């Protein structure tokens, strides 16, 4: 099924590209290869290969698809119709939950090989790059932007999800000088990661969070903090990133992350790394991850990311 959807997305992109007239397609394809050394073993993998297509169907209407292969299986991270009018934006389809710092590029292209814990959405099991079906509305002036997502179906990718709008995500964003901050809320029900989900096994989720980005020339400090309750248990967690892009080394960025999540148990992790851009479209990242030996990421991770635009 997934493979068929991936092929369909690719076909849609190609067919729009070949159409004459007003339809314009932009896209990018990326290949993410990783090597990791930790816990006495070294592994090498093609983490993901993906293509994103942005098809302009009309002056205000676009179709966006982002699909590929990750960990050996086909995935559709995003596939939505996007309508814009003035400051307003309406998306219908499948997209990343519009809460916190949620852009793929800000999370993956800034020098960190791994997403922060809270981006694994620990309140719903550790699901990398969880996206949801539904509708999202964004609007307001740049000084106070809002984004509301109504989603359902818990990432099953089987339906649009509007028939079960069980989750709502809300984000407000503003800025003042160098500081950009966001206030977030999330409410809904979700399935526990194990045992296998059943309709009766859904848990209530209520979360609030803050995110921030503070940037000066050469320096960016950003992060998120979330707290709330999942199925009656309290959850709190977040991360702080420090990004240093020194002027004497324009192709290098040095990164530091500290993070913690308290949910059933406490997870802590520290990441120190560097990103190098040797040429246009190439990104090489090296991360040293310090965390509890029982967990997967401890050790050194090396990532090569190649992105091409067309």
């Amino acid at each position, binding site marked *: 099924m997934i493979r068929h959807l991936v092929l369909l997305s690719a076909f849609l992109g190609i067919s729009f590209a070949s159409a004459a007239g007003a339809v314009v397609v932009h896209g990018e394809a990326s290949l993410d290869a990783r090597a990791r050394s930790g816990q006495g073993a070294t592994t090498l993998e093609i983490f993901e290969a993906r293509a994103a297509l942005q098809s302009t169907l009309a002056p205000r209407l676009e179709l966006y698809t982002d699909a590929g292969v990750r960990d050996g299986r086909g995935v559709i991270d995003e596939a939505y119709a*996007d309508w814009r009018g003035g400051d307003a934006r309406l998306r219908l389809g499948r997209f990343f939950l519009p809460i916190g710092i949620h852009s793929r590029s800000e999370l993956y292209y800034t020098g960190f090989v791994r997403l922060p814990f809270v981006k694994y959405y620990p309140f719903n099991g550790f699901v990398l790059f969880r996206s949801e079906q539904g509708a999202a509305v964004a609007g307001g002036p*740049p000084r106070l932007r809002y984004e509301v997502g109504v989603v359902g179906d818990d990432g099953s990718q089987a339906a649009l999800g509007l028939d079960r709008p069980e989750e709502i995500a809300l984000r407000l964003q503003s800025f003042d000088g160098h500081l950009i901050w966001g206030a977030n809320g999330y409410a809904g029900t979700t399935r526990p990661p194990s045992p296998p989900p059943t309709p009766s096994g859904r848990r209530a989720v209520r979360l609030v969070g803050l995110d921030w980005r503070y940037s000066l020339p050469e320096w960016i400090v950003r992060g998120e903090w979330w707290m709330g309750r999942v199925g009656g248990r309290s959850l709190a967690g977040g991360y702080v990133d420090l990004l240093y892009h020194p002027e004497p080394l324009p192709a290098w960025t040095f990164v530091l992350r500290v993070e913690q999540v308290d949910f059933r148990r406490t997870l802590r992790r520290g990441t120190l790394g560097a990103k190098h851009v040797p040429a246009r479209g190439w990104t090489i990242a090296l991360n040293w991850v310090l965390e509890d030996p029982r967990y997967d990421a401890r050790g050194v991770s090396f990532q090569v990311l190649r*992105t091409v635009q067309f």
Partner: protein
Amino acid sequence: MKVRVLLSLTTALALLAVGRSVAGELSGTVTARGRPVREAVLFVEGVRAGTPPLQPVVVDQRKRTFIPHVAAIMVGTTVLFPNNDTVFHNVFSYREGKRFDLGLYPVGTTRRVLFDRPGLVKIYCNIHSNMSMFLWVLENPYFAVTDARGAYRIVSIPPGSYSLRVWHERLGERTVTARVPATGAVVLDLTLGAR
């Protein structure tokens, strides 16, 4: 009174005629291996003239791309960098010419930079490694960027012999001598790359 008006009109027409007669034009195409070269920059070197425009120049950010990819401006021009994309960008230039880092800024907002020294400025986004643009900051208004047909046109050049530089991000550059007459246009077709 009528005589004064007539004299003024005559003087104005004479000045206009002189003004026209001392400004030439360079035009032509840039090709490489027989194909038109778009986004080549042509400019007159070694001449300081003109004043920068009062209106800022806009370099847009859409679909993770700088638009335009290549541009030329005069020293003293302000460039606006609006973020009209769906994601944050971090525009910077550290290598040559003007150095700046605009930091992260949200969708729908704009940052501005005054380019106050001549040279080639290479501009990037520190999040999206395939975003880049080239901005030539020049000391006179005698420049042009080729269009999709490889065509260029530089107008209002005082008569004389000039060093005309042609630059392209991948095809390299060359300098030729261009003689601009007091009147009329000179067609100068140029080739880049293997010659």
